[in-house]
């Protein structure tokens, strides 16, 4: 006989119960949103996610063909262009999304982790894009790697993160960093679904009975 869900010692059951409790299906994929979720600024979150998908697909295509393919194939060059522009869009959408959330003070109501994961996603994406510039295997990557090494070496990071090592940077760019950014994005989205979209500021009393609010 299965033990009651709340007292089960089964790790699988406990994890499932926790997941269902924190993120019931109707909260994970809701069909409605609070009435205040009605601004173009909300679109930039999903645009960022969409651009991330295009980045992964175009980057995956380049990875399948190999790092030198795009120098010798017109199709490869076009796919490289798709990768470049999807990254530019991804970063642009994310910056707008971040500014929007900053001015909404979107960390209110125990949503600090949502902000933190968003900020870490931005930082991680900068690192991922940087390693992408290092593995272009052209003049750009020669110059960027020989210049960037000074900052990284001065910080002690260059001792184990060698930007002039093409093989090491390739692995970071196509494997480790996308995985890290992908995990952070997943946690970020789950946090948004779990905590809900932050409500407008001064939602409570100031809008209803402003004359009674002590400032």
């Amino acid at each position, binding site marked *: 006989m299965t033990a009651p869900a709340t007292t089960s010692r089964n790790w699988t059951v406990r994890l499932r119960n926790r997941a269902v409790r924190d993120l019931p299906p109707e909260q994970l994929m809701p069909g409605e949103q609070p009435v205040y979720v009605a601004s173009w600024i909300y679109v930039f979150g999903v645009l960022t996610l969409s651009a991330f998908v295009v980045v992964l697909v175009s980057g995956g295509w380049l990875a399948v063909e190999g790092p030198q393919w795009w120098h010798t194939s017109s199709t490869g060059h076009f796919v490289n262009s798709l990768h470049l522009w999807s990254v530019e869009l991804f970063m642009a959408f994310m910056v707008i999304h971040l500014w929007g959330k900053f001015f909404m003070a979107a960390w209110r109501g125990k949503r600090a982790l949502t902000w933190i994961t968003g900020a870490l996603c931005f930082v991680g994406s900068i690192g991922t894009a940087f390693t992408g510039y290092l593995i272009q295997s052209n003049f750009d990557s*020669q110059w960027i790697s020989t210049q960037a090494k000074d900052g990284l070496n001065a910080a002690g990071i260059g001792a184990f993160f060698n930007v002039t090592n093409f093989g090491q940077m390739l692995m970071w760019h196509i494997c480790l960093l996308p995985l890290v950014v992908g995990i952070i994005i997943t946690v970020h989205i789950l946090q948004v679904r779990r905590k809900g979209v932050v409500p407008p500021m001064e939602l409570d009393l100031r809008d209803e009975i402003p004359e009674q609010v002590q400032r």
Partner: protein
Amino acid sequence: MTATPTVHRTPTTKAAAARKWTGRTREYDLVKEFVIALVVVTVLTCALAALFSSPDEKQITISTWSRTQPADFRQTAATELDGSSGTATYGAPYNHTPDAAQKVGPVSLQHIAGVTHPIDTVNDFVVGPLSGVPADSELGAALVQWKGATTDQQKTWASAYDDALTKAEGDLTKVGPGDYGPVPVMLDRLLAMAQSGGLDGALLSQKQFFQTDYTKPLLFIADGSYLEDQARAQHLGGDQWGMMNETGNFPGQAWLWLYTFWYQVSPFSTSGNADALVWGLMALLTLAFVLVPFIPGVRSIPRWIPVHRLIWRDYYRTRRA
């Protein structure tokens, strides 16, 4: 007279923000929104790629450098041999040059991290590659003379030749006589090897057949002035906001604007520890950015600059009505 009730705003606002929304809702199809956004972004990306393409400036090889600017190559090789090049005097992680590591105050993370990619410019960049050249008796004799000399003697020969090249501005016909030992022969052969493309391969494959670590050839090229000249012509220099620029007219890493900014202003622009200082500052600012919700003052900026009134204008208007 009725007393006005006192309401403390902050706790109530916090509580309201944390409460689950129980007010009015509107239909919102997240999956449909994502699919439409994905289509829009895909089409936009394809359009940008088709219209603007992407840059692919051809790489510089040691061969192209030595054929285009043999004087710069020879001068650079002389500095590798006398130990005065950028790489030879760099310090960690390439060598143990005293006091070369950058510091923030008394702390040098560069020094603490240690020498993890050891490079001996004399042997790795010059003597080692030349030792693999077959059937050249004059070079063989020069290498025997070099290897049989003391370190001080080697340095004296190489420095004298380096100085002579500097005075002659790279013009071999103007290099005066001097005690250069085997250095002129060695650098002649290294130049020939470089121009034939042999040095590119020799620097890359010093350890094994399969190789993906370009540290040595890149550092050798970067020690010369050819690479920097090409980069500055493309507005990629450090004092040209180069970190966020790209070759041609393409957008680069615009998101590095703040990191690049510090290098343009004092004291960073004039400090010998600029890289360490800028990295330290950016680490602090990044930490502050991540922890905005917990920093008094910063977290209140959205209240002082009420952009949220624009974002939620419909909602506020409805409530007031």
